[in-house]
């Protein structure tokens, strides 16, 4: 059963994964080029001073990378399921519909997660070229909330797409948007170190909502 869901989701995501990969890679390559340029035109000791003492973030390029990725993958997976009442196709499969949506969601989260990990590793590597490892670690810790925002927008997109009723769609948009903003409250490095685990737990709260659309679809008078 899971194999078939994986197959279907893979077919849907595959072309967009390529787009998303390229998008992420392009931004990361640009980050590298930008940093290299900075070190070419400024004195390195000044750049280190700005980075460590003043708190300038030289890698803010990737701030919205994963949330945008989350929206793309979420749309790629769930828009084809919903347009023209196609949700009925999935509801008629010999699979529990809530399990179906949950597994589809987990597959998407996995995809977003893998890209997030690749982003993190790339960031660490790129920063590590120009700065000592402490700064690379710091960049990673600082970028973690921006990476966490990816699954949040993914889940929000999935929920908004699958929800039949407008009012609830707006609720999902408001909650997801409010939640998303929580990850962008600071422009200083490592400010999230002490609260990230709380936000991660909070993100788990949004996962169970994935099963709602299957039930709500059948209650909406279509």
């Amino acid at each position, binding site marked *: 059963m899971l194999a078939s869901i994986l197959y279907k989701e893979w077919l849907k995501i595959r072309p967009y994964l390529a787009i998303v990969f390229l998008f992420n890679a392009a931004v990361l390559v640009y980050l590298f080029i930008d940093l290299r340029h900075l070190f070419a035109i400024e*004195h*390195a*000791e*000044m*750049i*280190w*001073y700005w*980075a*460590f*003492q003043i708190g300038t973030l030289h890698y803010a390029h990737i701030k919205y990378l994963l949330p945008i990725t989350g929206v793309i993958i979420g749309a790629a997976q769930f828009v084809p399921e919903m347009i023209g009442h196609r949700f009925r196709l999935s509801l008629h499969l010999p699979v529990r519909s*809530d399990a179906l949506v949950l597994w589809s969601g987990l597959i998407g989260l996995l995809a977003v997660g893998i890209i997030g990990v690749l982003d993190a590793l790339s960031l660490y590597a790129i920063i590590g*070229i*120009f*700065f*000592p490892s*402490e*700064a690379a670690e*710091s960049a990673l810790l600082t970028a973690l909330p921006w990476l966490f925002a990816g699954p949040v927008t993914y889940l929000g997109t999935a929920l908004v797409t699958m929800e039949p009723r407008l*009012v*609830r769609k707006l*609720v999902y948009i*408001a*909650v997801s948007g*409010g*939640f998303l903003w*929580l990850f962008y*409250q*600071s422009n*200083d*490095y*490592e*400010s*999230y*170190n*002490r*609260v990230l685990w*709380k*936000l991660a737990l*909070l993100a788990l*709260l*949004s996962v*169970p*909502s*994935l*099963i*709602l659309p299957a*039930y*709500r679809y059948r*209650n909406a008078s279509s």
Partner: protein
Amino acid sequence: MLPKLSRYTLILLAIVIMSVYLPRLYHKVFDEKTGKTQLFFSPVIKKFVFREMVGEGHQFITRDETGKDYDRQTFETLMPFIYYKNMDLWGKLPLHIDGHVFDKETMKKNRQVFELKPHMIADRSPRIQVFPLLESQPGRTGLRFPEDAFRMTDRMEFINVDTNTVDKRLTEQFTGALREAGFVFPARLVAGRVSILKPFDEGFFVVDANGGVYHVKRAKGQPVVIKTPIPSDLTVRNIKVTENKKREIYGTLLTKDGELYLISYDNYHLIKLPLENYDPDTMDFKLLVNPLYRTAVYSDDHTIYAVAMDTRYRPIARYRHVMFSGRRIPAGTVYKALFPFYIKTTDKTSGYLRFDVIRNGPSALIGIAFSLVFAIVVMNARKLGLRKHWADLAIIMFTGLYGLIAVTIIEPEP
């Protein structure tokens, strides 16, 4: 069962999000001006005086501790060492006070302020532990950042900024000097003023694994390491270095017990500041130095304290004052009724974000009562049985308005 459960997780999430943003929105709409009280010790009248904002607009009172009010100019003449520029403008210099005469230059040279706000304490804000060790004897005016930076690991490692690789020579040189002086790695604390906008450079104070405090400098490229006599059982929490031309005090030293010291240039002798009720984690601290007195002023959002000391830091007088801004209930009853709690994310005393639930007190019961009534009306209109949907009402009982909004907009499944 499952849809019911996931409705509640969604409601919980919505409540959390609302409790972050709705109170903020309220403040954005309804906030008013508040100002902190400024407290000084007047060397002229030998009393504490303060300047405080009261009421709307720009109404200030300038008053002394006995309750006597002054007009602004008189008030400032009570603080000649602070308002020395105005004193000069008003032709009141040179100052004759207590048998001394002070002219403008002397006053300017002797001014010093030491500041310690909670977020400046090392464990209260993030800081990448890589630092530039300036050349303290450059042989020219103006300090410059060196082409290397150091970090304390199991050695004092210097990294060349251009190649981003370890400078073995410097590393061995400085690590050796530290070890010779008795330094035990790893370091617990590295403290220094990272800036080239200062009159000279005193390098770093580094606390080793045993609590010993070492003074590390770079002079003509060579390491200068001094093991200070500061007792290692002091458990140093923070050191703030301030390079001042008077060369009397290296900076402040805060211990884990909340004791604040000055590190003097006299062989690092520690001068304990006789502070009462000082909480370094919640209070902004300032030490105002003038030729006659040293005044420590520290305050949180509610109360401001001051100790006036002589030039040997012996206490002369103390004062405490509940600030006007602290007396006014910072959040009105309406706010507290609307929001039984809120989630605090920012904290001006820390460089780290928080995510804590702060309760607003018993006024919330008013709001909860109203919310319950409203909820019952809505549930009846929707023909939802009150007993069947007891959980929704329970949520409102605990979360008030947040719960009401969440439970109403996120309807139960039929």
